[in-house]
């Protein structure tokens, strides 16, 4: 394994991390939009519009899933390479959660997990929303943690 300088992952990741926080934010906004179907009764009263809207949002959510998961995976890989065991340890649970989530998707393949036909069931919607909030909190905390670590390593370097 190549041995990276210890500050490397933090300085490299600091910049991409800030947009990374946006993933759960986007999801939260999307779920909120799903939940309130009264916003535009003229369009959404029309079943086709409403359906398209749901499909559009689900499609958007699905597009976010793979980039988010893969970037997070990449982080973990870098922490592994840099032997940042503590940071890696903090990220491992989420990594496993992502893997579990990804492989327990519906069997018909193309749907990654936000399925237009079931997303409006309140329990699924609630679950997804909660998941997004938790992730937002996690990413925010890790953002500050990375920032701190970067400054710390830079200073001590």
């Amino acid at each position, binding site marked *: 394994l190549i041995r990276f300088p210890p500050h490397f992952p933090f300085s490299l990741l600091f910049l991409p991390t800030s947009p990374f926080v946006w993933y759960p934010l986007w999801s939260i906004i999307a779920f909120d939009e799903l939940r309130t179907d009264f916003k535009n009764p003229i369009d959404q*009263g029309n079943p086709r519009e409403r359906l398209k809207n749901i499909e559009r949002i689900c499609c958007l959510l699905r597009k976010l899933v793979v980039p988010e998961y893969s970037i997070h995976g990449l982080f973990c890989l870098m922490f592994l390479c840099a032997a940042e065991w503590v940071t890696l340890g903090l990220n491992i649970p989420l990594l496993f959660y992502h893997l579990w989530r990804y492989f327990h998707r519906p069997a018909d393949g193309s749907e990654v997990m936000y399925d237009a036909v079931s997303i409006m069931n309140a329990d699924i919607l609630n679950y997804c929303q909660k998941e997004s909030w938790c992730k937002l909190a996690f990413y925010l905390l890790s953002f500050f943690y990375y920032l701190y670590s970067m400054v710390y390593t830079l200073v001590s370097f």
Partner: protein
Amino acid sequence: MRYTFISVEMITAQQECTVPKEVYHKGPKVKEGMQYGDYVNNQASSAPTPLSSTSDDEEEEEEDEEAGVDSSSTTSSASPMPNSYDALEGGSYPDMLSSSASSPAPDPAPEPDPAPAPAPASSAPQPSKMTKPFGYGYPTLQPGYQNATAPPNSGVPPSSPGYSGFQPYAQQYPGMNQLSSGLGGLSLQSSPQPESLRPINLTQERNILPVTPVWAPVPNLNLDLKKLNCSPDSFRCTLTNIPQTQALLNKAKLPLGLLLHPFRDLTQLPVITSNTIVRCRSCRTYINPFVSFIDQRRWKCNLCYRVNDVPEEFMYNPLTRSYGEPHKRPEVQNSTVEFIASSDYMLRPPQPAVYLFVLDVSHNAVEAGYLTILCQSLLENLDKLPGDSRTRIGFMTFDSTIHFYNLQEGLSQPQMLIVSDIDDVFLPTPDSLLVNLYESKELIKDLLNALPNMFTNTRETHSALGPALQAAFKLMSPTGGRVSVFQTQLPSLGAGLLQSREDPNQRSSTKVVQHLGPATDFYKKLALDCSGQQTAVDLFLLSSQYSDLASLACMSKYSAGCIYYYPSFHYTHNPSQAEKLQKDLKRYLTRKIGFEAVMRIRCTKGLSMHTFHGNFFVRSTDLLSLANINPDAGFAVQLSIEENLTDTSLVCFQTALLYTSSKGERRIRVHTLCLPVVSSLADVYAGVDVQAAICLLANMAVDRSVSSSLSDARDALVNAVVDSLSAYGSMVSNLQHSALIAPSSLKLFPLYVLALLKQKAFRTGTSTRLDDRVYAMCQIKCQPLVHLMKMIHPNLYRIDRLTDEGAIHVNDKVVPQPPLQKLSAEKLTREGAFLMDCGSVFYIWIGKSCDNHFIEDVLGYPNFASIPQKMTHLPELDTLSSERARSFITWLRDNRPLSPILHVVKDESPAKTEFFQHLIEDRTEAAFSYYEFLLHIQHQICK
């Protein structure tokens, strides 16, 4: 155009209010309306009541319920009839009330629940050995389990004191083994508790199944509310006493949810035409019997507690022609009403009824020969298709290419247009493929006569179902309507093609059952597109081999269609299936239909819905989008308690189904259910509706098997029993822990769960074809409760000794009511004949030494040996017992969504395994007997 329509409707509406009721009783619907006669035997009493809205024809347009936001303040100018509520037809409240009241059985059952009033032993009808159908809580106690003819039971401790206490009774009627006369009583404990809470020691109670059908428990409300409450046939809750908090619900470990059958055929239904539909201003609840009037001018919503004004129009009661009595209005007197909606409830002009038939004509389909039956049924029922003068109809056939039929008026004969480009389907002549039924009737008849023979020599074995569906979608998009797809094999060409996924060696595997979910999302996407265009796709799968129903079913599931499956269909080799198809088609083609429907379910603040079950698209957290609604569709909803209900003593649920009738009227059918809130665990248990709970659990288990695995679902079912019984056990901790105690309201719970585990959908170890399993799951999801219960736990009757004792009268016919037998081989005696009602199939089992008189009088053969192996009809013989048997079977059969086929099974014929697999209390190679199951549960609880 649209205005014309509306005015026509209005006239009809006026007729409704002025013309005597007979008008509504003509036509095929009436008969359908009676189907529930077994629960509400109100045929006779309903005759004078005019109200049958079953005569439904209506239709209208548009959609979202919410669109009508301000309806209550508008639209008076649209209607030529100010304030005439037409209907309330008949206006006789008392009648309506009595029949819609929640006590389900006016006559057949003196007691709504199995409520076993200790039946005095002396009233047991021993002389004739005929059992009296009612009044006995429990069938006879049998000598111990170990005497049963049933398979090896692991040792039962027969020596419990309670048990031996029954011996004397059992001995009193030595010959009654097969009879189920009950001796209720069994007062194990004389406690002051309500009957439904009486603790029952399940392992010692030998005969748990009541002899009468199990009725829905009646919510513990005051008498007035009880009378007003919604009929349990339409609307049931798994807990008739709603726990106050989620914590209490969690403690009870019981599922909370609603079972709905919103569009069922009703014999009477108040139809209200009024300019203003009174709804709560904030939550849009329709006014209902459970609101409270603060004073003459204001009412308080029972769901969100907002105080609303009573509109001026509402002050006048057209029924009594009096003013100032808003609480006497029909909306406030009936928990099931139908409103004729104004244009506020439409987004587009009313759509006509549009029917498209998409038919598989590949070699396989021609071999099976369904076309003849379909065309014949269509020809017979062409005039009975619900619709008005705008009704349109179209046909498509497909094999490896797609064939359209130009039926434009003026052509001398139908014109067939073949599109062979299945990768990019287009409509050859978009305007003339869906034609007006009345203008082109001759051409349609010509086509139907010609179709069965058009493809007799086809060599095409491929089936391009996907492209055909895409074409159908294009064709239907402008209007919406119903697409009926007939498919006989795996789709093998074009988009949506499927591969065989079933491994026959895995059919009886006890471990993993795979492929319960769809293989492709093509059908789901298509269904969503269809749903957006108000088109429902109904699937008829007539196939002899694996056809991947799990994938194909998606086209109906998400477009609110229905699914029919005829395994190994062949018109000559399998006449019983052919006959079933014929009967199902008759019902399918003529039953009521609603287009462009949405259903919104509201509940009192504090409760919230999650997870819906059925065929629909969930458009919002409380709104289901239903492209079509049919009277045979059932739904289930799971509920949770989000806020404590401490400040209220009643909760209400309201479903509003907004639909366009086939006659182009927009209608809203509203059901309201009111239930009490309780704060103690004991009360929660007292109010369990075990059948509703089982149906809800079955729905949840189907979801679980698809999303997780079948074994998970099975475990979850067992855990449901274990958890609820152990929770109950710890509540009544004064009782000994070793016994398996259940409250009387839950006594059937383990039995029903065992039945579910042995049901086709969930069983393991018994060879089950994947398609059969998936079909059973589809059925569980979309059948209404009454039918689902028969699928889960069939009813067994002894029919060789039917008497008129306790018989009921339906349509001038005497229908005997034999007692229910438990589903165990020990009940079958060689001297008897038994009828098993499994919902979609009837079996008549004839014992080896069955009385020759019975065989001769009912079956028309001189003796047992001469009965043929395959017999699917009872001959019409002019004997008393034949008449009784036939009237009983006809009564059972009356208007089920799926007309059952009858199999006469001889004791030694190979077909008897079919029959015996339904005897769920017995042990099979792969599954527990009932008693073993109880011991298993007990073991789990103690663990």
